[in-house]
């Protein structure tokens, strides 16, 4: 991750992350002091008033009204203060500046897709400019997901059939982790991506590079990033079969028959994954990839062909 941070929190890398942390530390230290007082009193009373004489029956303590009021009023004032402070920061976290750079985020089992205002799409990596507010408009094509960047202190659920959004402004360049934090099935823990924060100039040149047409094999390699949660290309068996060196071979299927791995089989496996399932695997590949364009599928076919 590169952003180990201090003992409790990762390094703060967005404009409001520092404010969230200040609040965290305030609650943390206030709680620690009060907790120490409670535990300290408890331990002291335990030993100070330990029963020495079996016949002893202590008299009730006359309760002090002032003390009782104090331990109701003081915590009330403290929590209301913390509530208002949290409310104030929350409002800012909720209100994206109108000039934010827009990225469309799509979550699906079990990959992320980031589409930029210029029409470029990336998968395992979201590239954003430093020092500029970025607003993500997010949707899901299957189940609930949640978009979480610990370094930026942002998180938002992604719900099918409605858009949700989140915004941040990165304060330093670097690479930070993106997690899915709403349980979404078998490979939930593999639904990862990175956010790469670069300078404005690097971002502009990166976008223009991406906008050019790629040759099919490179396009396929780029698209394949969303498949790596389940498919390896180095022979490792994950949730799905490894895809290197399979082109042109006979693939045994779960119904006992076998099929030649050719262009048509790859295309069918992407569009209709449940029809022909490789032997020894579950038919759990999501149907969400059927929305790919013919050009994208050509690219993936070319890439899988090239894998040795």
């Amino acid at each position, binding site marked *: 991750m590169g952003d180990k941070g201090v003992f409790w929190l990762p390094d703060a890398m967005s404009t409001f992350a520092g404010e*969230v942390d200040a609040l965290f530390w305030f609650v943390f230290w206030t709680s620690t002091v009060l907790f120490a007082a409670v535990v300290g009193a408890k331990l002291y*009373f335990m030993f100070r008033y330990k029963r020495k004489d079996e016949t002893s029956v202590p008299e009730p303590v006359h309760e002090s009204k002032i003390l009782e009021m104090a*331990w109701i009023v003081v915590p009330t004032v403290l929590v209301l203060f913390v509530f208002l*402070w*949290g409310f104030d920061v929350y409002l800012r976290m909720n209100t994206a500046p109108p000039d934010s750079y827009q990225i469309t985020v799509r979550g699906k089992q079990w990959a992320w897709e980031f589409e930029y205002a210029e029409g470029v799409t990336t998968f395992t990596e979201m590239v954003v400019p430093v020092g500029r507010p970025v607003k993500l408009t997010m949707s899901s094509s*299957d189940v609930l997901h949640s978009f979480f960047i610990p370094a930026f202190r942002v998180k938002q659920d992604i719900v099918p059939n409605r858009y949700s959004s989140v915004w941040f402004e990165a304060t330093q360049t670097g690479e930070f982790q993106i997690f899915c934090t709403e349980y979404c099935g078998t490979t939930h823990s593999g639904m990862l991506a990175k956010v790469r924060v670069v300078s404005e100039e690097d971002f502009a040149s990166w976008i223009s590079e991406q906008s050019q047409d790629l040759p099919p094999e490179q396009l396929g390699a780029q698209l394949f990033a969303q498949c790596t949660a389940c498919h390896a290309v180095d022979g490792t068996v994950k949730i799905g079969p490894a895809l290197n060196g399979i082109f042109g071979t006979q693939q045994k299927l779960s119904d006992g028959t076998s099929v030649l791995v050719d262009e048509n089989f790859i295309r069918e496996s992407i569009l209709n994954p449940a029809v022909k399932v490789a032997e020894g695997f579950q038919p759990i590949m999501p149907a969400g990839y059927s929305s790919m364009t013919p050009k994208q599928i050509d690219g993936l076919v070319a890439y899988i062909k090239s894998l040795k």
Partner: protein
Amino acid sequence: MSESASGTINYLSHDKSIKSWLLTLDHKRIGIMYLIAVSLAFLAGGILALLVRIELMAPGETIMSADAYNQAFTLHAVLMIFTFIIPAVPAVMGNFVLPLQIGAKDVAFPRLNLASFYIYVLGALIALGALLVGRVDGGWTFYTPYSTSVGDGILFVTTGVFVMGFSSILTGLNFIVTVHKMRAPGLTWNRLPLFIWSIYATAIVQVLATPVIGITMLLLFLEKFLHIGIFDPALGGDPVLFQHFFWFYSHPAVYIMILPAFGIVSDLMGTFSRHQVSGYKFVALSSVAIAFLGFLVWGHHMFVSGQSATSSVVFSLITYLIGIPTGVKVINWVSTMYKGSVQLKTPMLYAIAFLFTFSIGGFTGIMLGVLAIDIHLHDTYFVVAHFHYVMMGGNVIAALGGLHYWWPKMTGKMFNEKLGKIAAGLVFFGFNLTFFPQFIMGAQGMPRRYYDYLPEFQGYHLLSTYGSWVLGAGLFLILGYLIASLVNGKKAGLNPWGALTLEWTHTTTPPHPHNFLETPIVTRGAYDFHLAKDLFASGEEVSEVVTSTTH
């Protein structure tokens, strides 16, 4: 009844046939049957927890596949929450202790009480039936549309929870009526043991909240069979609506889990400090207030779900209102020991451990209630650690205290005190080692329900897994010496802890099938030890059944 008969007959020995157990209307026997049932559920859920922790010792596959892991953590939570924690204290200790503590012969409706037990068993079996039709997947929260997309497991689980809910409602109803109508003469509301107050508050929640799970189940069925779009976005439904329904039941359910623990801790603090529980009225009435306020905070589980920002703000504010009385209770329990006469027997060790672990659960709850901080911490291990500190560090630790406290009354046998203290230490240390590292890794960003994880989190996961072994060892040790005590335990005296509540002062050990030979007449509050000095004057264990009428 003659004196000699009262010395030999007790509720365990008067009829030992299997039939007399299965068809018993005796609240004490029903309590024992619940104890066996929920202990089995706890054992099964606990073994799953140990397997989950072993899987998480290293990133990637350790002992099971991703699918097996996902079902293991789901089943762990379903067993622990619906078949163990929710019924545990009310149904086991509530049943056994409540009529005894208020000087009644039984609960108000003994047949209904037996029916609730069998309804509970039926519900648990239906929920587990989900395993036969397919998978139980999606976490115990069963958020749609994922949970409804992986087969019909969720329909079985909600039906099972719905049926168990009936058991919960009937038990609650029974307790409410019993407390209102069957208190012994002189046992005014101000003299009630705090355990009764908390079971009473719990019963209110059981009766009012549980029907919501039935509504949710009905809606799921309507969607499944009539294709009316309610939760499923493909039919035009709204998945966030399901979360509202779910938490509208499950947040009050959190108070079904924690309020009885408050009652046990109050009783333990009073008895083992031989002192009035500080702020008695506040502790009693705040339980009832918490029971009602508990209905108004469900949205604090949904700050990042997509509910409106305004809702989130309101839910955050009300969450604090409920936090304050809870915090004040902790102060009251601590100050009960002040100028008391504190005896550190095994049950008291659990009460003291509770003050430590439950306080951490409470303070981290305040942390999670802060809108801006919750966004970062939501759905991470910080939340996992928080609710284990409340559920296990709160409910289970208190329940273990209660079990040790009432064990002599239930069985007539003393457990091994030395092993009891060692086990309490193991449970306390193991629990903290398991769950404290989870706060840190959660704050650093480790999401919950992850089969695989980034290597930098492994150190915390390892500590947590080692902790689970210590915790498991402590719990198995308890199981071992409690069972051993049945065989070779020292015979328990009438009142080994020197308590003042009726189950210790006015009944035999174990109690007579009809509880009391004569109706007790109550002349003092549950913790008015200073009014009962003569009982302790000899310095010996209090060993005489008090019958106020004959003295």
